[in-house]
């Protein structure tokens, strides 16, 4: 009798081992299937790899909030040395194109026709009054800037820049000394890279996983997987793993492009950026999971992850508009947009050069959100089974 006890006892660990081997096998089989499926869908694969590249190049070079090639005309009643000096500075600057002198009454027409976007008007008697200023005597303004502000952003930037250039002429005792930290050239690409990253991972992870899970529901293969001894949670893990790998590849592409092509500094350390991004990838995957549990059709999955998640993300994450400028309601609302925290953290590490410890708050919030989303989808999923 004791011998039999021993025997049945002894076979436990062995059985356990056998069991775990089987489980690994079947997880691997599913991961392989999912990967094959993704790899065979060449078009989707191409889109996933190409979108980041296109976006980075587009935002990095084409779409830019920097002022470039601003056409400037000058009104100067007296072409004195002082005026020539100032005009030369403008003309030799890469950002401005000097379009010649015009008369007072041409200003309106030139601006309206769009031939120029800014006009600099020098006061008569410019040199003498300039000297008064040098001497510290009070004076009325001697330069007027008339700027086409139909594009607010570039008008603002152009004005600021012109002031800076002209100030050299107007007053040597500069009242302000401005220094642009972290991004001295004010390159807008710097600002967009974190935003693009926030966008792309939602796209790849949330959208693609949710659609692929819902597709299996629609086609009916999900049913077959659920009747198999495969644990439902494992079915989901098998779904997530290949997309996680793709996201890593995309992440590496983005980082390489932004470092070598756009010269984004990344002075905060690549590993910090990497871990933060991987966490964000997990979060997006959990979101995709949640979407796939809630909806029944692929179209609904696309709509939900595309419109309901992507749009607020674009608008509320601070990617396009600074959060500080939001009305109070939207500012509060932006707190629940995961991308906001991710973009903020990445911006700090990529551009400000903060070390990883400086973004612990963002990291913790993202971690919390991941846990919540993942937990909720697991609970929801188990509910559905009953």
């Amino acid at each position, binding site marked *: 009798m004791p011998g039999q006890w021993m025997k049945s006892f002894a076979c436990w660990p062995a059985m356990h081992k056998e069991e775990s081997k089987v489980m690994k096998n*079947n997880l691997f*089989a*599913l991961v392989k299937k999912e990967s*094959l499926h993704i790899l*065979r869908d060449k078009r989707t694969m191409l889109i996933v790899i190409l979108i980041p590249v296109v976006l980075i190049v587009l935002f990095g070079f084409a779409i830019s909030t920097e002022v470039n090639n601003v056409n400037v005309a000058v009104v100067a009643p007296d072409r004195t040395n002082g005026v020539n000096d100032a005009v030369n500075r403008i003309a030799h600057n890469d950002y401005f194109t000097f379009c010649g002198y015009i008369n007072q009454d041409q200003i309106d027409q030139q601006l309206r026709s769009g031939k120029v976007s800014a006009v600099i008007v020098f006061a008569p008697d410019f040199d003498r009054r300039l000297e008064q200023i040098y001497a510290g005597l009070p004076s009325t303004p001697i330069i007027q800037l008339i700027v086409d502000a139909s594009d607010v952003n570039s008008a603002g930037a152009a004005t600021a820049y012109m002031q800076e250039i002209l100030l050299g002429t107007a007053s040597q005792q500069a009242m302000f000394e401005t220094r642009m930290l972290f991004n001295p050239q004010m390159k807008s690409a710097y600002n967009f890279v974190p935003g693009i990253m926030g966008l792309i991972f939602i796209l790849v992870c949330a959208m693609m996983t949710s659609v692929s899970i819902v597709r299996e529901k629609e086609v009916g*293969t999900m*049913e*077959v*997987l659920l*009747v198999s001894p495969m644990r439902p949670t494992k079915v989901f893990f098998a779904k997530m793993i290949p997309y996680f790998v793709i996201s890593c590849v995309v992440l590496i592409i983005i980082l390489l492009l932004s470092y070598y092509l756009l010269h984004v500094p990344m002075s905060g350390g690549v590993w910090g950026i990497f871990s933060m991004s991987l966490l964000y990838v997990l979060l997006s995957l959990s979101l995709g999971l949640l979407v796939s549990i809630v909806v029944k059709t692929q179209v609904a999955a696309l709509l939900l992850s595309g419109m309901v998640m992507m749009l607020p993300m674009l608008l509320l994450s601070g990617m396009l508009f600074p959060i500080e400028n939001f009305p109070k309601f939207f500012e509060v609302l932006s707190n629940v947009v995961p991308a906001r925290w991710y973009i903020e953290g990445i911006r700090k590490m990529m551009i400000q050069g903060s070390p990883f410890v400086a973004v612990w708050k963002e990291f913790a919030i993202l971690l919390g959100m991941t846990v919540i989303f993942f937990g909720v989808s697991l609970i929801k999923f188990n509910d559905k089974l009953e």
Partner: protein
Amino acid sequence: MSETVISVRNLTKRFGDFTAVNNISFDVYQGEIFGFLGANGAGKTTAMRMLCGLSYPTSGSGTVAGFNVMREGEMIKRHIGYMSQRFSLYNTLTVGENIKLFAGIYGLSKQVTAKRSDELLARLKFSSERNTLVKALPLGWKQKLAFAIAGIHRPEIIFLDEPTGGVDPVTRRQFWEMIYEAAEGGTTIFVTTHYMDEAEYCSRVSIMVDGEVRALDTPTRLKQQFNAGSMDEVFRMLARDAQRGE
């Protein structure tokens, strides 16, 4: 009499106030082809889900392949095969890859998988299609392949949920030959269908109406009992009294 492989007593499933399956009891014996009929909404699918370990009964008891339906859903899943009315293979994988996938899911070793997939392909005369994408196969072939794959891990029972929907009569005939072959090999077949001619092929048939099993016997005896010429008439007589709509 052969061994009992499915045995349920007073199985009930309620969703809130709605009783989908009301107190059903029956036995299925090894090697039988058990037809499970019922109009849409009669509770067939719910009953079948409980037997497959996909949902737990509200009350009642039962065993499938020797495992308790109340508690051992996961063990049941290891011992059954399943093929649904909707398509159950992966279109973007080849025939061979589909076989490997399901062999992997059921934890078969590499050697066993290789042996069984050769056998399976030879039996279906599919050997030349091993590397064809499933997408490219005609529907009838896909259904036959799906059935063969549902048996890849040699389950004791194979559940077929309207397996022949949308398939032409010739292929349906061939499909039923496969079912017979499997049953002769000792595998129990539990099949739902809407085709009454298929009901005639079954060893025994149960007919569900409004969540209850109203009739259960061999097709011949059912016809005698209801004094009907075909299973179709038997079914109509029973379904006429149904309270539940679609």
